[in-house]
């Protein structure tokens, strides 16, 4: 590695205070632990993202491909000021979210990948990354867009986001913003979680990020389409 060249290519890093893990009781009674991960676990996370690359349903393929690249870029020091939160149930990875800080005032929400569906896991993870940006990093607003109409409708309807001019860095789609005011107005209704996470739950989550098999991931995303009955 040419250190001098690498110094140009590797972005500097802004200090980010850690995101304290939390636990959410799901409709199933299951305990969803949401916690921040460091870049060393990216190779493990990519195993869960890879099966989504060929799933057209709900734009999982585009979200998966972009998330794969963002995580890999973070792992290999080619993305600036990215953070990543994961959701685990009994150690099993059920969702990933990531965001990039654009400035001390603005974060750019990147992606939300829910592997387990129908339990608001995507919504809980999305809320967690907004919580991190607004409450812990002190941003004034987070820029948001979506590839999937389902995600777009959910964020728009649930948070009543404000439209912004310009472009989100994920492309030319109209950007919207979650402001501090909007966040706090919706917090009681949408942002769940209890802290601290009980030690036994935290120990299981940190011991190993368990990745479901490719078949299981596709079953969770595609539902009955992959079952035998037609």
């Amino acid at each position, binding site marked *: 590695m040419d250190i001098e060249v690498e110094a140009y290519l590797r972005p500097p890093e802004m200090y980010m205070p850690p995101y304290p893990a939390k636990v959410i*009781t799901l*409709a199933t009674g299951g305990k969803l632990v949401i916690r921040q991960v460091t870049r060393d676990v990216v190779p493990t996370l990519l195993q869960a993202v890879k099966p989504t690359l060929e799933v057209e349903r709900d734009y999982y393929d585009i979200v998966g491909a972009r998330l794969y690249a963002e995580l890999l870029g973070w792992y290999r020091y080619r993305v600036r000021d990215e953070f990543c939160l994961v959701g685990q149930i009994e150690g099993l990875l059920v969702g990933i979210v990531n965001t990039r800080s654009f400035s001390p005032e603005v974060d750019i929400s990147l992606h939300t990948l829910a592997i387990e569906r*129908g339990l608001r896991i995507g919504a*809980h993870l999305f809320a967690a990354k907004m919580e991190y940006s607004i409450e812990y990093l002190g941003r004034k607003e987070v820029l948001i867009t979506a590839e999937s109409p389902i995600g777009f409708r959910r964020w728009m309807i649930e948070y009543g986001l404000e439209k912004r001019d310009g472009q989100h860095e994920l492309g030319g789609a109209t950007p919207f913003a979650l402001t501090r005011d909007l966040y706090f107005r919706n917090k009681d209704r949408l942002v769940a979680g209890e802290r601290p996470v009980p030690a036994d739950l935290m120990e299981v989550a940190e011991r190993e990020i368990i990745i479901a098999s490719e078949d299981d991931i596709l079953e969770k995303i595609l539902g*009955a*389409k992959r079952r035998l*009955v037609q």
Partner: protein
Amino acid sequence: MRPVVVAGAGMIPFERRDEDSLVGMMAVAGLNAMDDAGLGDRAVDAVYVGNMASGLFNHQVSVASALVDRLSLMPAAADRIENGPASGGSAIKNGFLAVASGYADIVLVVGGEKMREVIGPKATDIVAAMTHPSAEYIYGVTLPALAGLFTRLYMEKYGVTREHLTMVAIKNQENGLLNPYAHIRMKITMEGVLTHPQAHINSPIVADPLHLYDCCPVSDGAAAVLLTTEEIAKELNKPIVTIDGVGQATDTHTLQERSDPTDLKAVTVASERAFSMAGLKPKDVDVAELHDAFTILEIAESEHAGFFPKGEGAKALEAGETRIGGKLPINPSGGLKARGHPVGATGVAQAVELVWQLRGEAGDRQVKKATTGFSLNFGGFGNNVLAFVLRRKS
């Protein structure tokens, strides 16, 4: 009237089916029912399609004609039957009458709806088109709103609690886990959707006091039954399940005109008519499929259909009488709550479940020794209701 046999039953899994067309879904369900009957080359005389709103959901009408063509059943007679969420039940009634009267010997009844083509609020708006245009709809009334008002009154009058409503949801979602055709296949807990301090985030208010998990999902799907005479059914060599009772009744269009809005008169009368035709009583029923579009409806219908006295449905639920293995299992399929509710398909899917139960083909959710089944398909907000009694002949 001639006895009418359900010789074939079939459906497709209910869920969001982006890749499928309405007619395509109905065709597969229809083929499943015809295959199940072992119909072979025999001609179908008539096709009745239960569908509520394909014109609004899918910009397609004349779906019965389209289905006959897709299945190459020409020159069979074909009609689409619309009766709101009871369209499926009305289609079965018409098929029943066709066979019973001698108008047709072999009738295919298919129910189908593709609702997920539009976004959730739009689907709710389309379903709300069944409300009174100037007395209800213009004021923003939707079916969840009516159900919310009904639930509040029912709670005040009969002491039904949110715990009772959640018990219905938990039971039916547990049953749905046993049904590979169910839209929602997920266990839920009282803690997760009601008692945990943050349960309101998992199950937000839809129309107070109804929360998300008190409401059925918006589904795509189709179901079908093949109706015929006893003579032909014997030749097909299938277990004989007959439609012994059909009842239908109506009530005022608007809820506000009813002297007691908690009194579901059409449910009572339709059920009485079905039992009367079958020569049976509610106590003779081994398994029931009720129209639980909202959790309160399972409780209220179980009383109005005559299974429990008024105000006692919640107690029976609490005592476990309506679980699989209980005194009267209700909605072993998961009901609308878990199997899903593609509106036009629901009444037919209820019949499919009863046929499977009465034949002993319901797998892990089989109700033991079931020989008599009852289904109730609730149109409007209880203003056009159909009830059926099905029996397995030894």
